[in-house]
């Protein structure tokens, strides 16, 4: 039944066309290559599931590393963002300036952020210098050369960069927490933690969903920062699915194999996003 004046499909056509042309169709073609041994240069030949079995044999350590990084980042950036938002929501006199300061890293290119931090974390860089200056010289170490510290460093750099962005999300979410509710609760004798847990947190649910889903997607696709900070090292210890796909596809020229892993990546992101949304949406509609 067509109502006169209903919004015509034409309105959607340009957007859909661009999306299909630039993103979806090429991705579909790329996905098809996942079942071949394409090298980007010569004709591909079908290899069925061989790429996938190869990944499960050789590359599965990358999945674990991606999950670790994702876990560190998602928790870190949302906790930091929420903390900043809670603290800078009202009252403080310089809150607008502070908010802007915390947002500065978010507007800088991830490549540049990684360069800056590589410089800071280098063996003779400012971090080790500071440690030595305050007498903690024994803690000075090759941060980017050891797997555990390198993983932590990547997570910290990413949290540093995007905490302000998540602060924005939670600030927006907090606008929906009516002051009256909180004041009424205070009058009723509820302490600050009770007020937070029972009133604020539930009302922040939409913001929490957005924050965790966005950070999860970022973490799974993580590429720029890892590439520049550690190159996936030491010895592949900080390789993520994103860097692994890049290395196999572009550096080694194995487009077929790389596409297979990229497909797995897409699947993983979908799954993670869906799971999170289900968990966080909860029983409330």
């Amino acid at each position, binding site marked *: 039944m067509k109502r006169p004046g209903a919004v*015509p*499909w*034409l309105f959607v*056509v340009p957007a859909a*066309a661009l999306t299909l*042309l630039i993103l979806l169709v090429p991705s579909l073609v790329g996905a098809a290559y996942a079942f071949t*041994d394409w*090298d*980007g*240069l*010569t004709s591909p030949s079908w290899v069925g599931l061989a790429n996938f079995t190869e990944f499960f044999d050789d590359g599965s350590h990358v999945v674990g590393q991606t999950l670790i990084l994702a876990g560190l980042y998602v928790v870190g950036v949302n906790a930091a963002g929420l903390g900043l938002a809670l603290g800078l929501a009202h009252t403080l006199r310089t809150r607008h300036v502070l908010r802007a300061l915390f947002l500065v890293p978010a507007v800088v290119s991830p490549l540049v952020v990684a360069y800056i931090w*590589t410089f800071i*974390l*280098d*063996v*003779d*860089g400012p971090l080790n210098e500071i440690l030595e200056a305050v007498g903690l010289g024994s803690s000075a*170490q*090759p*941060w*980017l*050369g*050891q797997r555990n510290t*390198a993983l932590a460093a990547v997570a910290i750099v990413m949290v540093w960069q995007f905490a302000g962005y998540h602060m924005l999300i939670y600030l927006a979410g907090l606008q929906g927490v009516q002051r009256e509710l909180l004041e009424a609760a205070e009058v009723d004798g509820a302490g600050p933690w009770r007020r937070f847990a029972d009133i604020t947190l539930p009302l922040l649910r939409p913001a929490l969903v957005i924050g965790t889903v966005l950070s999860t997607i970022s973490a799974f696709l993580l590429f720029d920062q890892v590439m*520049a900070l*550690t*190159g*996936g*090292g*030491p*010895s*592949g210890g900080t390789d993520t699915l994103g860097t692994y796909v890049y*290395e196999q596809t*572009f*550096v*080694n*020229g*194995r487009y077929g194999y790389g596409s297979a892993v990229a497909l797995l990546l897409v699947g993983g992101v979908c799954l993670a996003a869906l799971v999170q949304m289900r968990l966080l949406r909860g029983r409330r509609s």
Partner: protein
Amino acid sequence: MNIRGRALGCAAVAVALLAAAAGCGADAGGDGEIVVSVWDDGREESSIDVAARDFEKAHPDLTVTVQKNPFDQHLQALRRQLGAGRAPDVAMTVVGYGESGTVRALADKGLLADLGESPWAGRLPDTVAGAVGDGSEVYAFPVDSMAIGIVAKKGTDVPGTYTSMLTACRDAGRDGKTAFALGGHENSKMPHIVGFALAASTVYADDPGYGDKRLRDEVTFAGSDGWEQAVARFGEMRDAGCFGENAAGTTREATARALGDGDALMAVTPTVTLPLWQAAAPDAEFVMAPFPGDDDPDRVLVPAGASSGLVVPAKASDAGPGKQFVDFYAKHRARYAEIDGAVPALPDDGGGPRAPGYAAALEPYLRDGRTAPIMDQQWPNPELIARFDSGLVEMLTGRAEPADVLESMDAVWTSEAP
């Protein structure tokens, strides 16, 4: 026609146009234009730029366009262009195997024009022939050459034997310095250079043809005593404190700073990287010396060979102009090498120097053929060099044994480029 019909009509036209455009693949460059794709070596005027202008003067009906890619990305960009049908007429690339997009990797896939008829193709020395072709065919004009050795500030006491090197490492450690600056960071791509320097005097001193045998799958790394010894010696150097404590997390820049500041005494490096060391200490004078891979001076070999080359992609259209440019460049190579401050890979018949001035100590080795190949030029799978670097870094942190490193390399060996 209603709005919906009109919309569909527009969409149909657009799709048709795109399909028509898709039918004609556009190669880069057209009539009268030669496109040369090179990497950016940090200079505004490289020899290719000069050659382009000279060529245009000599052929007024042709123009030469030089396209520069960031160095790290050049091979990838070249592959993309070749794969999409947007090949340049001439491209600079790396000779041999070792990465994807190198001369032999591309030649194996039939993507390069045969340059065997060129005037310079007849006088390729054996050491170079295998890197720019498969021994019988020629696919690249070798431009620059390089050799691996020790770089240090002039006046440094560079050890002459393997054992005295270990002693020097210990002495340096006692003085609070590091003997060899080593960048173990994944992006620095330095550890394998030390590995090559060691392997030259163990593997290739006994078996100069090892590389060819490996290509034919007649031998393995783990089964080679020479490779086992080379990697074991890396461990010995580590134990003698040659690389210092924090090598694993050191970036290339930090290595240069350490050498420049005097915190490190030497570094193992290819000749072409001098600008890196010079940049960190502009007022210092650096020299290079051979790496003493063994105590027996007869066994010490210098890894050396051609490094870069010019190729002509084999395209549907004419490869003629590209070949013209390459031959022109080859004819004037001596002059262009001076502009670049590099040593041409094809030595003049007059016997010019084989090593740049600061590496004069390497000259006798190069002249007398006491060289080993640059090993990864015979490694078709790019994954291999990553494994070698990783393995050596794991050895630095004590988490791997020589056998582990070599086995991980054998595990990814292929005798063809992927």
